[in-house]
């Protein structure tokens, strides 16, 4: 029965000093939340889970703060022995950032606890109630071949569960967590059990389907125990010896797995599910090393076992993305080389437009993951990092313990399964809200979708219902302006970095013309997406010192609108000529033709690739795009502000 699931193999192995660390934690006066969570974040077996839970309980009793862990009160109602499950739940919850307090009534008191208003469970006012009941807890008899009686049985069970839910709702207001029922392994007819109305399996199938529907309707939480039991094997799940010996509803070996699944649901209820999958590239997204093996050498093709293993990772990433999980890349590579397969390899499923943030460089991965989280405005604790290299995994775990980093087996064939077995993206509901939460990046995906449906770029742009807002630099925008100046690489003509103090001095200098640009569209507000700084030059000229834009809004003619805005202010200020510079870097090839596209004439080019451009203000007629323009906060510039 030793397997990925049974042994929680996505978690690092229990360290040799586990027992010593538990003892040390018990003796410590320090806040213990982080250390207990770190200890919990291993592949604990039942005994180790119980030991850790005892330490957590001791810390709680001694009044030591469980810093960083979110409190949650869970009542567990069961028809079976849950004395080992309760501590395992506490340990698994700590792994997921939850300080779990379990309310455990006496054995087999499900209905009594639910229906009595001042029962132990109801008076404890738990956050949630887990109905940890199995098929033995419900009145279910076989009625072979009698469809009508079977339907009545099913309705009877569902009515019972609904009445439990109504009672808990009325008496304590708690969220209910309902389990589906794992059918017994013993069959009566054989295969026919599934189809024959009135067999236990057939009735349980119907009940499970209705429990699912009921939870979707009421907003209560579904725990698919049947699915979990099938995953590990029904015969291993139902340990008949342990039922007889101590009324264990399922094998004690599987308690850590069961507890982790409950903890995922609780964490999801507290908004702790992960939001972003960060992928390593070499030997994770494809087989081989792109920098060494080249585009033809990497393994990523149908018909090749290694290639198909990595394709499975890509397929999974795409499926996760389709439900709102943001994808990012973090790879030690030359950026351009790392992007090549995404752009040019015919077998790749993942394309650059699926990747919200792409970090291929030689920085350490912890630094890159931090940068990715910042760029996405997501917490480090929303990140999952998938990497075949145990050294990189170890480094990220050490430097960024709140990033989820699954252990991976040697065989790439199991990467995708291992990632899903870890349950990082557990959801208790799926609504359009989820897609919204994935934010700008998911919106971008929808924009691409839309682009395919409408004819022509301008029609597409018009359908976006865009509003562009221009303002000069100001105090509210200052921090974001500085951030864009310091992190924009690709759409950045000069890549000049300025501090927030520098930004303020441009803001205060009446001879400098500045723009901060925001863009909203039918999908939402993109926030500030472009920054311009024009410095006064000689002979009524503005020199465009800085022009940068977020790549999120590429292809929207934002740059054309920006030029139109600059020209208008230039005219008002008596400026007759704009000059611009392109300073080449490793990352800004994107804008090498920026000024040419906007109608500037090239003035010079030097050996480094630096080009100078100029535009006559009076004659300029930039191509604009259909969008609403708001221009606010500008004081009319006077002639004498121009040097």
């Amino acid at each position, binding site marked *: 029965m030793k397997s990925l699931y049974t042994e929680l193999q996505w978690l690092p192995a229990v360290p040799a000093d586990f027992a010593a660390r538990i003892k040390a934690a018990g003796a410590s006066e320090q806040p213990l939340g982080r250390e207990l969570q770190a200890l919990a974040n291993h592949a604990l077996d*039942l*005994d180790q889970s*119980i*030991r850790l839970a005892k330490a957590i309980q001791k810390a709680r009793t001694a009044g030591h703060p469980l810093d960083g862990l979110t409190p949650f009160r869970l009542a567990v109602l069961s028809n079976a022995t849950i004395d080992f499950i309760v501590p395992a739940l506490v340990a698994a919850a700590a792994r997921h950032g939850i300080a779990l307090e379990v309310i455990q009534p006496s054995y087999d008191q499900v209905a009594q606890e639910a229906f009595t208003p001042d029962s132990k469970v109801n008076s404890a006012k738990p956050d949630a109630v887990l109905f940890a009941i199995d098929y033995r807890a419900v009145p279910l008899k076989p009625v072979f071949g009698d469809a009508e009686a079977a339907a009545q049985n099913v309705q009877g069970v569902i009515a019972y569960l609904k009445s439990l839910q109504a009672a808990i709702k009325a008496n304590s207001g708690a969220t209910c967590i309902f389990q589906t029922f794992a059918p017994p392994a013993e069959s009566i007819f054989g295969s026919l059990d599934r189809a024959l109305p009135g067999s236990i399996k057939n009735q349980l199938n119907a009940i499970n389907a209705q429990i699912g529907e009921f939870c979707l309707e009421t907003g209560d939480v579904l725990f698919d125990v049947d699915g979990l039991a099938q995953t590990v094997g029904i015969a291993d799940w139902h340990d008949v010896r342990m039922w*007889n*010996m101590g009324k264990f509803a399922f094998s004690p070996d599987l308690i850590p797995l069961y507890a982790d699944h409950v903890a995922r649901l609780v964490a999801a209820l507290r908004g702790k599910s992960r939001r972003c999958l960060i992928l390593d590239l070499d030997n994770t997204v494809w087989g081989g090393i792109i920098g060494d093996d080249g585009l033809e050498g990497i393994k990523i093709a149908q018909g090749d076992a290694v290639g198909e293993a990595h394709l499975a990772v890509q397929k999974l990433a795409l499926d996760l993305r389709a439900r709102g999980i943001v994808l990012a890349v973090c790879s030690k590579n030359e950026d351009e080389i790392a992007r090549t397969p995404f752009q040019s390899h015919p077998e790749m499923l993942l394309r650059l437009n699926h990747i919200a943030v792409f970090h291929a460089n030689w920085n350490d991965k912890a630094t890159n993951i931090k940068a990715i989280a910042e760029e996405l405005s997501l917490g480090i604790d929303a990140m999952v990092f998938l990497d075949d290299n145990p050294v990189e995994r170890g480094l990220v775990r050490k430097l960024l313990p709140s990033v989820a980093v699954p252990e991976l087996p040697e065989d790439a064939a199991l990467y995708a399964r291992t990632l899903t077995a870890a349950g990082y993206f557990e959801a208790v509901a799926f609504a359009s809200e989820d897609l919204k939460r994935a934010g700008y990046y998911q919106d971008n995906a929808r924009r691409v979708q839309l682009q395919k449906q409408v004819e022509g770029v301008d029609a597409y742009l018009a359908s976006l219902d865009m509003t562009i807002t221009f303002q000069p630099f100001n105090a509210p925008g200052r921090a974001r302006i500085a951030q864009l100046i310091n992190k924009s690489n690709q759409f950045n003509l000069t890549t000049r970095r300025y501090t927030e103090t520098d930004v303020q001095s441009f803001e205060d200098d009446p001879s400098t013309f500045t723009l901060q640009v925001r863009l909203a569209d039918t999908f939402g507000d993109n926030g500030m997406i472009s920054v311009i700084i024009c410095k006064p030059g000689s002979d009524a000229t503005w020199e465009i010192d800085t022009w940068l834009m977020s790549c999120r809004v590429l292809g929207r003619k934002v740059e054309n609108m920006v030029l139109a805005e600059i020209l208008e202010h230039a005219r008002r200020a008596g400026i007759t000529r704009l000059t611009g510079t392109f300073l080449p870097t490793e990352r800004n090839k994107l804008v090498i033709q920026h000024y040419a596209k906007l109608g500037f004439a090239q003035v010079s080019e030097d050996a480094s690739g630096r080009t100078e451009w100029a535009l006559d203000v009076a004659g300029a007629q930039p191509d604009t795009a259909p969008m609403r323009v708001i221009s606010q906060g500008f004081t009319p510039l006077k002639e004498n502000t121009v040097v």
Partner: protein
Amino acid sequence: MDAAEIYSRLTPIFQDIFDDDSIVPTAEMTAKDVDEWDSLSHIRMILAVEKEFSLKFSTTEVGHLEKVGDLVSLIQSRA
């Protein structure tokens, strides 16, 4: 496997499960001699012993255990 080795491997299991670092299992020891030894910790102990010695006891075998000496004999008979 000789009994002494079995006892030495049982000791940490007993100390952990019955939460007492001073417990040393002996042949005549029974549940009555240990505060924490109730029906649940008994089952936990059986599971831990099965894991330690990589074997599974039958329901009957577990039912016949009266004292630690019985457990040791059972392990010996199966090893």
